[in-house]
């Protein structure tokens, strides 16, 4: 029983990274129709930037939680204005290729500057140690990651469903032509939405910094699983991305526990099953797929 609880916490912690990043991916896809392959590289940039901020500017983990997403938002805005917007009118494949190329460039730039073996990062003291509940020992940091990302996801969801901006963005996502016809300037929201999606990937990267190896390649396999998450949840679906993220985290943890050799394959088996049964994903609408 204890073990099951432990695996659940570990799965939810791992899922937190997927949920946050997938949320960004889903929002970008929803509003721009862009499948952002550079999302893994942006996750990596988030972690690397945290390490650099600590090393060069003495800015610790808490500051990074705020500063890094802001920086990545600006980076996202730049990328959208300079590159992505020119290809929006064309087949989505063009932006897919563009962002794929962009991720290669980013990874190589980081390798050039910081090498391949990674950067050190110190954990914030408050988050070290474990929470002991009888026999059960839960690492504080994993709990923090789960609670924090769940809170962020909730805020984003409220933003999307309860505010005027959110409604506009959702309208622009679901019926762009109708939204335009009603006099809403859809284009105005494209750039900030792209930046916001990138910022979420960066935030996931900040959370990963104390917990995972900070290397140029850290996003390369991450982004593959991220796509599985988005497909499972339903492309463009905000709730789907979050639920899919946590679900994949749990599958990964229980897979590692009970069928180690199949831990990663299980995720893609789940994806295949979902696609067969519900081609649009768990929370996707058929027509959006």
């Amino acid at each position, binding site marked *: 029983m204890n073990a099951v609880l432990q695996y659940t916490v570990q799965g939810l912690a791992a899922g937190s990274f997927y949920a946050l990043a997938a949320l960004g991916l889903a929002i970008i896809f929803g509003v721009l129709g862009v499948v952002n392959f550079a999302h893994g590289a942006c996750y990596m940039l988030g972690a690397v930037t945290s390490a650099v901020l600590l090393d060069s500017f003495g800015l610790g983990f808490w500051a990074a939680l705020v500063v890094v997403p802001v920086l990545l938002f600006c980076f996202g805005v730049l990328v959208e204005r300079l590159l992505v917007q020119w290809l929006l009118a064309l087949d989505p494949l063009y932006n897919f290729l563009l962002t794929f190329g962009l991720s290669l460039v980013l990874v190589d730039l980081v390798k050039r500057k910081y090498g391949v073996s990674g950067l050190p990062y110190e954990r914030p003291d408050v988050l070290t140690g474990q929470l002991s509940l009888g026999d059960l020992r839960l690492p504080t940091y994993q709990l923090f990651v789960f609670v924090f990302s769940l809170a962020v996801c909730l805020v984003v969801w409220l933003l999307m469903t309860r505010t005027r901006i959110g409604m506009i963005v959702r309208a622009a996502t679901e019926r762009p032509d109708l939204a335009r016809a009603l006099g809403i300037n859809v284009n105005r929201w494209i750039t900030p939405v792209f930046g916001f999606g990138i910022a979420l990937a960066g935030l996931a990267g900040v959370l990963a910094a104390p917990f995972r190896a900070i290397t140029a390649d850290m996003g390369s396999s991450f982004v593959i699983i991220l796509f599985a998450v988005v497909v499972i949840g339903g492309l463009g679906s905000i709730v789907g991305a979050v639920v899919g993220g946590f679900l994949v985290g749990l599958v990964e943890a229980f897979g590692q526990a009970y069928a*180690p050799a199949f*831990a990663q394959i299980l995720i893609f088996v789940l994806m295949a099953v979902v696609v067969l049964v519900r081609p649009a994903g768990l929370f996707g609408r058929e027509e959006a797929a």
Partner: protein
Amino acid sequence: MRRKSAAAAAAIISGALVLSACGQGGPSSASGPITDDKVVLAVLNDQSGVYKDLSGPNSVKAVEMAVADYQKKYGDDAVATDIEVVTADHQNEPDVANTKAQELYDREHADVILDVPTSSAALAVANQAKAKKKLFLAVGPATTELTGDQCNKYTFNWAYDTYMLANGTGTAVTENGDKDWEIVYPDYAFGQDMEKSFSSAIDEAGGSVSGSIATPFPNDNFTTFLTKAAASKPDVIGTMQAGGDLINLVKQYNEAGYADQGIDLAVGLMFITDIHSLGVEQFAGTSFTDAWYWNMDDKSRAWADRFMKETGTRPSFAHAGNYSAALQYLEAVQRAETDDADDVVDELEGYKVDDVFLRNGEIRAGDHRVIHDAYLAKVKSPDEVTEDWDYEDIVTTIPAEDAFMPEEESGCSME
């Protein structure tokens, strides 16, 4: 890449046309002691991927340092008057390594290929060395196959192998009281090899392995694997992960606080670059086997200072190993008075040597395993660190004859 080879092909074709147009000619092959009038040392390794920092471009620098030292030592008496160092990137892929080795031996006239991390890539190069009858001095790969079942006359393994790592760490940690082990290893050739070597070393030392967990590779989430390994309350968890995976695992091991529960961590293979990238704090107290450490004595330190001037960083054992292999190759050419591969092999076989890297070294004739002292090291705690890269304490020196697999067990037969 394609354009490059197309250009090369064009160059060869036009060159051939020019030659045939001249009727006869072309460079007359000198029948001196040195083939093609020059000695070519080729460093074939990972110039851009995961092993770039621990070997990569700086190993080329180390080989150039060896060339400079050879030239300085022999001056006008040098047998190899013209020495060239070339390099190629094998991207850790066996098929790329195979093609590159062919190119280096045939087109670049390489007399020796050095380094080649990644065992599968190294085995491919060893086959080329055998076919072309040219030398291959391996520094980067860990497999015992190179000096075992797949050994050949022209291949030597210079620095370390899985047996040496397991024998050092597995034995020492068990004898120090951590008798009950759980092993976590990546599920590919190197990891499986390490798991086997460690298990038998631990058994022999009187310990036991209560479980081995295979993990996917690469992997960034080891929390559940660690929980499983810790469930049986072992004395120590042995990890065979390398590079970024190792760093992931160590961070998550620390996060879960297993050290406080009395579960130690032992690392199968670790380079100083790993400690540098994770930070001493997280690795403090971890035991591992090292083939060489830059600050272990004055001789190593003096060389490491020179290396620092050249590269701006401290050397890993792979860098020092490449220096040593290049230097001993050139010394063998000097003694043989030719770069003919068979003569150089004769000079190398059975040679006893002491240099910056090899201490009490011997190039075993039977299996071409280069044996030398190995070291059981412990990572310092942050307050013991007095300068950059000062990360290790050498706990014990494992004498050369005990450090490596005995020759009669290697299973090597050179026909």
